[in-house]
């Protein structure tokens, strides 16, 4: 627990330094924010077009889909803020043999890696998501109870746990294979399944997205929590699998570290 507290503190201070650095290059920061906001608005527009030009998504009306998009942007924003720099950081670290530096720090190296992913540009996406969510809640005339907020937060938390597991796996893959550009692309495409309502998938895929690869926790569950359509049993299974995947990824990490050969001195 003390290690987790220390890593959270480290994340906080590293993030502060990254904000200081971003402020030194204000123009780049402003451009990054603007681009993030512009790209964020494309998603809901695209969803609107798909929804209106097709039969729509079973079990979802247009306003609910816009809420879903808001949650998606909110989650993507959080993910980018927490882990946006991670892939670049890890690849650089392994390819240049700089992991050595982290291995001789007093906190677990994987913790330091995960605490180094802060990216300020995610704020634009997070803001866009928050605004769209707020608008949709108002448009749908939803009553948001404390329980709904709790379930929403819980889903976000387990979504982060799942993402941590994937990032640890990614780091392991880079340690073993060093260069994994295409493999990363494939994984990114698969995680894209979590960005659509579960109801559009076949029964088998639906089960997979709740159990083996519980990507449903990212957007589906928080959106369902706000819409008061929460399924306790389904969520419990997914949360359990998220924890299990985190455990497995940490075991992989320990194995990979034994195989780590560093770079030439």
């Amino acid at each position: 627990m003390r290690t987790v507290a220390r890593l959270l503190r480290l994340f906080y201070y590293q993030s502060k330094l990254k904000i200081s650095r971003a402020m030194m290059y204000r123009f780049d920061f402003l451009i990054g924010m603007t681009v993030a906001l512009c790209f964020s608005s494309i998603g809901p527009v695209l969803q609107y077009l798909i929804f209106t030009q097709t039969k729509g998504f079973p079990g979802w009306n247009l306003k609910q889909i816009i809420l879903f998009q808001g949650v998606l942007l909110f989650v993507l924003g959080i993910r980018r803020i927490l882990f946006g720099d991670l892939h670049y950081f890890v690849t650089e670290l392994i390819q240049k043999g700089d992991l050595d530096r982290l291995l001789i720090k007093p906190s677990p190296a994987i913790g330091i890696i995960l605490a180094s992913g802060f990216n300020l540009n995610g704020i634009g996406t997070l803001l866009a998501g928050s605004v769209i969510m707020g608008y949709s809640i108002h448009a749908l005339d939803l009553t948001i109870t404390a329980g709904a907020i709790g379930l929403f937060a819980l889903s976000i938390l387990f979504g982060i746990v799942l993402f941590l597991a994937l990032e640890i796996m990614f780091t392991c893959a880079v340690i073993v294979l060093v260069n994994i550009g295409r493999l990363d692309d494939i994984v990114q495409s698969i995680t894209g399944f979590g960005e659509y309502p579960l109801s559009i998938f076949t029964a088998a895929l639906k089960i997979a997205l709740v159990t083996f690869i519980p990507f449903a926790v990212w957007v589906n569950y928080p959106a369902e929590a706000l819409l008061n359509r929460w399924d306790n049993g389904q969520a419990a299974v997914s949360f359990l699998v998220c924890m299990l995947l985190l455990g497995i990824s940490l075991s992989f990490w320990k194995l990979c570290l034994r195989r780590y050969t560093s770079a030439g001195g």
Partner: protein
Amino acid sequence: MKPLEPVIEVSHLSKTFRVAQRDKSSLLSSLSSLIHRQYVQIEALRDINLHIRKGEVRALIGPNGAGKSSTIKALTGILYPTAGSVRVLGVDPWTNRSRLASELGVLFGQKTQLWWDLPALDTFYLHKQMYSIPNRTYQANLDYFIDVLSLHQVVKKPVRQLSLGERMKCEFICALLHEPQLVFLDEPTIGLDIFSKEAIRAFVKKVNREKGTTFIITTHDLSDIEDLCNNVTIINHGGIVFNDSIESLGTYFSSRKIVDIKFQKPIDEHELRGYNVMSFSGMAASIEVDVERSPLQIELQKLLGIGLIQDININNPSIESVIKDIYSKPREQSLGTF
């Protein structure tokens, strides 16, 4: 007198790497490596035995690819050994890496741990958090290092605006801020001018003296070794080929002497035939004499007969030439020497 406690105890340490190898540099060879790749076993370290006591300043040197970095990586718990045992500050570095890390300081002369775009003070503060340094200790140490290294204004400027010497001094602060017992310095003076080198060396000596910190230095700069180190460990071909005091290194060739002789008038180089002439410039010569083959007195008498002498000095071979000789020995011979 109670012997100083050991900081590092290494016995029979070996490390073998499996490395992919391609014989030819052709497209066909690259494509065939996709299906069938050849691997070779590289014995990076073999049977390393090493004991380092608290408060020592030890040089760990060797030619490129000799195994210095692998040794340090094994000592810091970065690499798992294939065989042998290592105890650093009384613990096994692989199973206690995080705990040991608080007692280790590391400086890589060719890599920076400072945040490039921000003042060095920001990185120091991040280190404070990472190592959980108490406020009072952090401030006291920071003030001490800033004073000793005269970095009062430097630490407030963005790192990218600092000179190499200033940056290296800041790297030292990063490595020492948490009061480690053992510090690894990898090429600490690389690329520095003579003044910065002197400042860094004086700093290392002061910290070693005042705080009792043990330093292990890997360097190719022999003046670092002569100025700083009590003991020298030379690694070549993955094994230790010399492990003794700096004085012993100076008298490594006890049977060889270097006679530097300056004549009053120019002489013909031909007159020095039969001697191992290291250098000759008409009026001066540097000659190596093997005193086991012929006593020094007889050799000097012969030299005095060549011409009128203005000055004469007799020295041991330089440490540089000793090290060069040790480095140039082939694998089997060099490992058999020690």
